[in-house]
Structure formats: structure tokens, C-alpha cells
């Protein structure tokens, strides 16, 4: 009996982590996976209405022209910022941002991977777009050759009730190894992934899927003034969305 007790103590000493709690679960989806993979998997699992067009609004630091491509080099919709369009969840779309006074000679081509949809009241869909907010820091980093990745999520109502709505720019990420998609999932429901770099279409862009991988684009009227938008000051941080009245 005494030897058994000593053996138990010995095994605990060899493996002290055995008494600790369990770690994070396995996360098969990651923001570093190739663009379109996460949305494709979620679209097949959710099996949501394929005819649903999720309104999305694009906000620039000051002004500019925003075009959206849905797999073709010809823009499916164009408008001045803040622009709004509607798109099918589960696909990747490419934006074209130009005529910004801060970058008059440059055109940026960020991509939008639409993961999920909102469930607004019927008839009020266009008053609840998912906002995409670009900052000056984003475009500056992209022009320096960096890849800016943002995950936009719909906050969990329980978390939203305890958070100060005026302090929405919480630093929720910090290191390069973090799975931003999983972190956003802990805070709410990931809606889309934005990736911004300095690449231009170039030759053969339409063949290689540069302009997206299909999906439908529809018109969407501008959002009302009661749509909340949180502006973030740092790239690759989780952008919190408040799409409520």
C-alpha cells in the first residue's frame, strides 16, 4: 500500500499538468487558411438560404470610391464611401478602393470573405448592414507591404450587455500566433474576414480567382444613421460590430 502511494505521488511529480484543467478545444477554422476556405466550410454546414443577400457597408477614413467584384474583372457595383451592397454569404469578394484623398495615386484591392449572415426584422434588412471599417493605419500598413487581416463579428448579447458601448476599441488580439477567427468566435459570431494588402490585379487575375470565387451581388440602400460603427485604430485586431438600432 505504501509503495502504491509513493508510486502515485511519483507519477504526479513526473506529470504535474495532469491535475490541471482542459485546454482550448480544437479549432479547424483559422483566419490564416486560404481565402474562401472558411466561408465555404461554414456555408456547407449552415445550409442557409442561398438566395439571401447580406447587406454590407464599407467605410473609409474620409472619402473615396468603392467598387465590388464578384469573380469578374468588371465591377458588380460601385459607389462613393460609405458604400453599401448586398452579397451572398459563403463567398469571397474583392473590393476596389480608389480616389482616396490620403492616397490619391493608389488603388487598393481588399478582399471580403463573407462568413455568415444577420437575422434582422423582415423588411429592415438594409438598415442592418455588416460594417467594414478601414482606417488610415490599415492602408498605410498595406502600402508598406504588410497584410492586414480583420475579423468582424456580431457581439454576443450577453457580452454586449456588460461592455461599455463607448469603449468598443478593446485590444482583443496581440500576438501573431493567435487564431483571430477563434478569438472572434469566443466573443460572438464571426461575420466576415477582411484582408488588405498592396497587390493589384495584374495579368490573369480573373483566371486565378483574384476577383472572388462567385456569389451574387445585389443593391442595398444606404444604412440609417442609427447603425453603430466602431472604428479601430490598429490593424489585425478584432473589429466589433454593433448593428442595432
Amino acid at each position, binding site marked *: 500500500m505504501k509503495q502504491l502511494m509513493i508510486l502515485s505521488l511519483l507519477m504526479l511529480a513526473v506529470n504535474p499538468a495532469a491535475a490541471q484543467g482542459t485546454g482550448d478545444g480544437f479549432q479547424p477554422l483559422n483566419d490564416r487558411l486560404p481565402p474562401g476556405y472558411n466561408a465555404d466550410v461554414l456555408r456547407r454546414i449552415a445550409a442557409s438560404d442561398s438566395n439571401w443577400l447580406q447587406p454590407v457597408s464599407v467605410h473609409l477614413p474620409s472619402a473615396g470610391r468603392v467598387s465590388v467584384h464578384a469573380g469578374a474583372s468588371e465591377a458588380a457595383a460601385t459607389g462613393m464611401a460609405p458604400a453599401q451592397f448586398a452579397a451572398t454569404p459563403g463567398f469571397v469578394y474583392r473590393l476596389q478602393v480608389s480616389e482616396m484623398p490620403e492616397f490619391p495615386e493608389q488603388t487598393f484591392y481588399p478582399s471580403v470573405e463573407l462568413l455568415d449572415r444577420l437575422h434582422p426584422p423582415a423588411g429592415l434588412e438594409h438598415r442592418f448592414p455588416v460594417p467594414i471599417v478601414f482606417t488610415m493605419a490599415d492602408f498605410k500598413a498595406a502600402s508598406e507591404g504588410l*497584410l492586414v487581416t480583420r475579423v468582424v463579428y456580431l457581439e454576443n448579447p450577453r457580452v454586449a450587455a456588460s461592455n461599455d458601448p463607448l469603449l468598443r476599441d478593446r485590444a482583443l488580439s496581440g500576438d501573431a500566433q493567435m487564431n483571430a477567427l477563434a478569438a472572434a468566435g469566443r466573443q460572438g459570431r464571426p461575420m466576415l474576414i477582411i484582408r488588405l494588402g498592396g497587390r493589384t490585379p495584374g495579368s*490573369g487575375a480573373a483566371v486565378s*480567382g483574384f476577383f472572388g470565387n462567385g456569389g451574387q451581388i445585389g443593391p442595398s440602400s444606404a444604412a440609417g444613421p442609427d447603425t453603430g460603427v466602431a472604428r479601430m485604430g490598429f490593424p489585425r485586431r478584432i473589429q466589433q460590430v454593433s448593428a442595432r438600432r
Partner: protein
Amino acid sequence: MRYCFLALGALAVVCTGCAGVSGTSGTTALKSTQHVAPPAAMLQHPGPMVDGPGPGVLGILAQPAAHSAAAAHAVAGMATQVTFLGQDGMSVGWLSDGMLARNQKFVPGRADFGQGAVYQLVFSDIPGEGWEGVSLYPTLEVRGADPNTMSYLQHNVVPLELTEDDLLHVSSNNMVTKVIYLPDPEHQARAIAGVETLVSTTLDPGVDPIQQAERLGTIMLVLRLGNKEMHFEDAQMVPQPDGSVQPVSMILDGFNGEHVPPTPVGLLPAFMGGVPGAMVAGMGAPGAPLPISGVGPTPVWGSPTSGTPIGLPGPPHLPLGGPAGLKSHTVRNLTQNKMPEPVDHLLIDVQHDPGYSMPEPVRHIQYSEKHPVYAPGEVSVPSGR
């Protein structure tokens, strides 16, 4: 008793000794509460040479055939956009279909190169003393998009900088190898993904910049630069329609409006034929045809160059050029995986706090009525009723 303690001590030495050995041999010792997710490449594919959805994705929900075909199509047509930096005004040209195209781009400028190939470049009009009239002929190896680099390559232009030090080494008969790679997250200095460059001339002697970069991340470009003169300007003898052979100059010049895209002078092994492509695993989507070996786009199994169970080409028959003599080869997978057994009986304990609290239900109902008895004339009845 003494032997019993001796046995316990030996057990402790064995346990702790194993941990020590694994630590010194490079194997990362993980706590039992830590988990390691497969890399992005493995998440896309169940395993080497097997295509389809990775772990965590139900096969019946996914459509591996359509997804893999789309992915392969995207990779096949994908190009890496390169921006040339460092020597402002220097012209960049390349070999295109056997013709040397000069002055196609000027630093700083950007050009697209198809992935998985090697290109012959030409640098001219290099600023600085001693470079008047001199051209350099580097080769540019453009690696294929990896799941780790796919996002970056689709959104960013890869910088390729030619520095004064590089030119100094070239003029000193040294070969310069520049490797541009995307660091793995654990090697990134900041949260935003950016590229890093390794130059052979800045490394210790004997250190291969390509191997070093592969340890730190995923390679996107390899530039090899020396001072060898190439004679693409020499006229080539081209047969004419009348049967004669005439010398024809194969030089194109961007100044004359002659702009052509670069064409590869070689393909990287991963993009060559010989090794069959990945096979689609699983049953596929409902209604989709099953992949059958040798039928349709599904390649034939049994190619002799894929002799190992992990998808690597088989060993050569040594000595090279001699008759086939290899009888067997063994590949041992020494990876220390921790794969749990499948769950056969699942127990889920649920608890509400506070739980429901209801009053005791009615168990007994006793009902009684008392009927008065009146004699005639004791009850008056209103008239009219």
C-alpha cells in the same frame, strides 16, 4: 523492500529520462492540456497524396471534388506579383519564348510571374560607377502558393530589393542568393504578416539560405545573381519559308513598345509531371460521381515514382545507371503522435442551478355534498316562475 524502492527509482529515472531525451532531440514536450493543430496545408487535405476536406469537416457535407478542383484551378492560374526595388531607374527585362525582352519594367516597378517556375531576368542601366553598359542575368525562382502564403500572395506584392551590397558582391565574383519568405507565426516579430529576406552573403559560411528560410517560414521567391555574361543578343539562325536559314535577332525592347510577359525557362519539381496528383478521398457530395482510378480526371494509381507511403518519390536504384537491384526500402514514421481512441459511449451530465422547484402534486381529492331536505310548504316559490 529495498528492491521495491530500487524499482520505483528506476521507474522515475525512466520517466524523467525519456522527457529529457525527447527535449534534447528536438521534440517539443507538450503538457497533457496542450493541443497542437495541424498546419494549414494539412487542414485542407486529409494527408499527403490524398485530397478532400481535412479533419473537422464532415465528408458528406463537403464537396471535395468541386473544392479541390477549384483550388487546383486557382493555384494553376495564380501569379506572384513582384516589385523590384533598390536601384531606382534600373531596367528589368526577361526571357519570353526564347526572346530576350529588355526594358520591360523600371525600378520601382512591378510584374506578375506565374508560380512554380524559374525565370531568366536581365538587369540593365544599373546606376552607380562601374556598371555602365553592364547587364546582369539573374534567375528568379517563383515558388507555388502554399496554404500558408495563399492569403499574402493574393493580397500583397512581394518586394525584391537589389542593394548596393548585392552589387558589390557580384562585382567581386560572388554569387548572391536572396530568399524572400513569409515567416511562420512563431517567427513573426509583429502581428501583421510581412515578408523577410535572407541573403547568402550575410549568413555564416556553410549556411544555406534556402534551408534556413524553410525552417523559419515559407519561401515565395529565390533570386540567384552572379556576373556571368549571357549571350542572348547573338543572332540565331532561323529557317525561312524559302528553305534558307537567316540570322534573326531575338531582342525585344520595351522602349519600342515591345512588351511581352515573362515565360518560364524551367519548372519547379512540384509542378512537373511524373508524380501523380492528390487523390480525392471520401464519398464526395450526394449525387457526385465517385472518383475511380484511371477514369476521367482521376489519375492512375501505381506510378513507380510514388513508392513511399508518405507521398515522396521512391529511392533511386543505386548505383545510378546500373540495373535495378533494390529489393526493399523501409520508411519509419517516428513522430510521437497523441491520437486518442474513438469514443464508443458518450456520457453527458447536465445540471440546472437552481433546478425546478414545484409544489407537491395533488394525491387525494375528497369531495362531499350536503343536500338539505325540505318538507312540503317550507320553501316558497316566487310567483311567475
